């Protein structure tokens, strides 16, 4: 763990070498998610509710997903940028170091500028928290925290899955963005508004609803079932099959060497 922070320090120092670029990206990230926020805002100005959900409620949903995504993208960026690691041959260097491969991939990259999105998420939370009609008891705060933490793990799992695919093909990985960026966009609204099919897909195949929709129902008081608040933990288990897939890819890499 200490080594992890040493790696992080190194990456932070590397990024601060390019201060202007860093600040511009930060700003860019912020503005991009701000436009998404405006999108929701204008729709809700006109229709007031979407499928019964009020503006602050949707904001809670959106901001928690955005926070998860930006944290995952910030810290698990190494997996997201993994195809480059293969192409540049850095993976060979990783294999030459006496540390775990996943650990080194994780520490190969850190995207601090993603904090722009995180900042946006925090602003929205600050705006929405007092307005969404939730009485913020300890268990509700814990629910929100578990939602975000679970989300970070599910997104990280998706990045690992993406990295795993890049062992098999370098081209045509764009379709994976459907799951990562797609989930982030879908996640703006509670998943049930897209209909039964989508909700099922995001429950059983990619467990996004487990950290978004179901605990959200409990959070805003549409359900009293406290078990819903624990579902993000179940969703986080998704990281296991994804890691397994990554290992499979790594084994193939070592036998093909390309």
């Amino acid at each position, binding site marked *: 763990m200490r080594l992890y922070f040493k*790696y992080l320090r190194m990456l932070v120092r590397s*990024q601060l070498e390019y201060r202007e670029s860093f600040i511009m990206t930060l700003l860019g990230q912020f503005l991009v998610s701000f436009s998404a926020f405006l999108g929701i805002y204008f729709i809700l100005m006109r229709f007031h509710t979407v499928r019964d959900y009020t503006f602050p409620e949707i904001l809670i949903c959106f901001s928690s997903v955005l926070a998860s995504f930006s944290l995952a993208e910030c810290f698990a960026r190494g997996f997201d940028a993994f195809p480059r690691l293969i192409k540049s*041959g850095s993976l*060979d*260097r990783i294999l*030459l170091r*006496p*540390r775990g491969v996943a650990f080194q991939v994780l520490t190969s990259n850190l995207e601090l500028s993603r904090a722009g999105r995180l900042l946006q998420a925090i602003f929205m939370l600050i705006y929405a928290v007092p307005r969404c009609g939730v009485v913020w008891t300890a268990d509700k705060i814990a629910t929100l925290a578990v939602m975000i933490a679970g989300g970070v793990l599910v997104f990280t799992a998706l990045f690992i899955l993406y990295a795993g695919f890049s062992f098999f093909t370098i081209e045509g990985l764009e379709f994976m963005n459907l799951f990562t960026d797609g989930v982030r966009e879908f996640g703006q609204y509670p998943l049930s508004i897209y209909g039964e099919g989508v909700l099922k897909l995001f429950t059983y195949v990619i467990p996004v609803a487990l950290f978004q929709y179901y605990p959200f129902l409990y959070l805003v008081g549409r359900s009293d079932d406290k078990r819903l608040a624990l579902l993000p933990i179940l969703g986080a288990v998704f990281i296991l099959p994804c890691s397994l897939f990554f290992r499979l890819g790594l084994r193939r890499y070592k036998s093909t060497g390309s």
Partner: protein
Amino acid sequence: MIELNGVCKTFKVAKRNAGFREAAKSLFKREYTLINALSDVSFKIGDGETVGYIGPNGAGKSSTIKVMCGVLVPDSGECVIDGLVPWRKRKEHVRRIGAVFGQRSQLWWDVPVIDSLELIRDIYSVGEAEYKRTLSELVELLDIKDIIKTPARQLSLGQRMRCEIAASLIHSPKTLFLDEPTIGLDAVSKLAVRKFIKSINKSRGTTVILTTHDMQDIEAITDRIILIGRGRILLDGPLYELKGKGSEGKTIVIEYSGGGLPEIEGLTAVEDSGSHAKIAVDTALISVSEAIAAISSSVEIIDLSVSGQTVEELVASLYREFRI
């Protein structure tokens, strides 16, 4: 102790003809060609040896190095290095080896070199006292005192290579793999790198395995040559033995005036302009000193030089001999 026994490796390479139609077709059905990167590679390298691993591009040098580093798993055959199979005990194995790839950097690009070295120290969990000792030794021998506070990206290639070598020796490995360590370096840096590698081999007894296309590297550093071509080991032996094989002929180049060159058995004028001549001497028939004596008795020698076959020529002739 490095032991390779019958190591084989075949790569499947997708092939595709040029053109859009072919590209579209390859989306659905791909044809593959099998390339025998390594077929039945066996050799033994003892502790403290310096080995030049040579062969033309695509001969299988890098694949062998990758197998020995544990990055590549062969299809069949055995590879045991100091009692470990590299790809089975990766973490334990890589602690004992160091690797420098001339074309790829292992330093963190944007931070001062010293920061990279410190992180590498932590990755290998090298103790503070040992680190300090090793570092001061490396800094002095490689003459990098003034540059380790500079970010790696601002270094010249020669400076960077010296830092790369330092980085791969922080954990005092038993075996050092060098893949084209002098590629693209200027003369001064090349000499410095060669001298350093030689001295680290002497002082620490580090086993050095070097791949290169620069035959002067081979001459300066290695005692033994392994030649690989088309995935097979073609030749394995001490450098002097190889040299003995090749240097049956010497060449005498002279500037002269007056008279004509002597016609003696064993001497052949390869070039002769009347004042400048290149003469091949077959040392099996006549010694170099006899040849010079014979030449000087018939012409006035103004300038003279004798050269044997260089390692470069030797290797080129080997490549020709084995048709690789």
